[in-house]
């Protein structure tokens, strides 16, 4: 092992190709965990109580490390002890120009492309300090082919459909999320520089469908193509 050689991300073969600048993804993927107002609505009074003590102010983020990235259409194997996985369809923003302390107007120009993304996790009962395994399982992130877009399109919301065994299980409208894509890039860039090739997931939809072993998932979004995979039971 050479610790001084460039470390190739374990999931680098699962990184989709990018046909526009910056030409390749870095493998850094960050997502907004709390973006859907429906989650806060569902929590109701609990938002103001312990442990949360009020609605979140800054974007609530999570990291999808390299081990989570899998080829878009590869089967997902449930971890031991789980009989279903939550399938959260979302929109991935591919950063084209370094975003460091940009305002929302400039943020849209930092997005080079959009892609379908799906984040597979175990259902949470608390958002205070979620257990890492719930959101960082091996192979739990899939990215569709990035679609290059001009700034106005790059920052636009999208409507995504999730089909389980051919039946519509959820429609996700990112336009209802707490922040626009441009606002999210801007607020994240206040403390965390997003580099060209980094990916920002705009948010986890509330009440994402639970998919069991043996079921097939198909996700599509207008202008974003589609991705499909199967969920397999624990070995």
């Amino acid at each position: 092992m050479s610790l001084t050689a460039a470390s190739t991300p374990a999931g680098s073969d699962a990184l989709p190709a990018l046909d526009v600048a910056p030409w390749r993804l870095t493998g850094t993927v960050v997502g907004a965990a709390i973006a859907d107002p429906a989650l806060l609505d569902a929590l109701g009074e609990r938002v103001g109580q312990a442990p949360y003590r009020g609605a979140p102010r800054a974007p609530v983020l999570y990291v999808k490390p390299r081990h989570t990235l899998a080829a878009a259409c590869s089967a997902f194997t449930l971890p031991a002890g789980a009989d279903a996985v939550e399938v959260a369809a979302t929109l991935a923003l591919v950063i084209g120009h370094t975003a460091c302390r940009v305002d929302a107007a400039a943020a849209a120009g930092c997005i080079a492309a959009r892609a379908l993304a799906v984040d597979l996790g175990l259902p949470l009962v608390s958002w205070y300090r979620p257990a890492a395994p719930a959101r960082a399982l091996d192979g739990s992130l899939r990215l569709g082919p990035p679609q290059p877009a001009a700034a106005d399109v790059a920052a636009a919301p999208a409507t995504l459909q999730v089909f389980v065994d051919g039946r519509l299980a959820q429609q996700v409208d990112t336009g209802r999320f707490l922040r626009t894509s441009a606002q999210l890039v801007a607020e994240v860039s206040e403390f965390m520089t997003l580099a060209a090739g980094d990916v920002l997931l705009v948010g986890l939809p509330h009440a994402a469908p639970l998919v069991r072993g043996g079921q097939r998932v198909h996700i599509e979004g207008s202008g974003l193509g589609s991705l499909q995979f199967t969920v397999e039971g624990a070995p």
Partner: protein
Amino acid sequence: MSRPGAGTGRTARTARVAHAGAIHEAHPHAAGVQLADGRVLAEDAVVWLPPVQPGTVVALGLNYADHVQELAKELARPAAPSDSEPLVFFKTAASLLGHRGLTWRPRAVRFMHYECELAVIIGHGGRNIAEPDAMAHVAGYTVANDYAIRDYLENWHRPNLRVKNRDGATVLGPWFVPAAEVGDPHALALRTWVNGKLVQQGHTSNMVHRVAPLVAWLSRFMTLAPGDVILTGTPEGVVNVDAGDEVVCEIEGIGRLVNTLADDAAFGR
């Protein structure tokens, strides 16, 4: 050439430094550092980078019982007892910084603090690693200073990235020290000085979740890969630091990591 560990590859401690237009492997030398090509330079004649190119950076929260006690007042829920699962979160590459670097200390915040931590570097990767085999997957260690700004703490997905994943606020180095040179990672004193004053003292024997069980536990849900880094948490003794302060984190036998805090103006804010 007489550099330590010459010809033995990873058996010697190494740093990654930038000098005169290139990035080099460097080794300790009485006069500072020696590059792999033989040049000897003063410690301040090179730019110190994190000593490995990290893959995934995993960080532990509340992994020293004394630190849990220290934070008890602000924890909205009782902290984890020692028999519960580790509290881990992930960091991104943008947060990393090398030895002798500058970290932004926003003027508007009231409580920014250092955290001296033993950083474990994974060598041989793996999945479902058994605890008795876990130490064979550890390539070595370095020192980490993982800053936090508590003003930004919110009770959603703690610790939130605005607190713990800020640009250049996770400092690593100076040396990658091979595991064989360290021996028992739970026999090491940790100390932090601010402007020469000792402010934090702890011992790795007081970790709640130790290195071997951590490696085993992580590998149950994630495939560990070469270059992955585990930051194992900090003991008690965290106090506010200000712009201009020099913060030195030292772990016995591993190294002495220096960082300086800089004002808004230095970062164009």
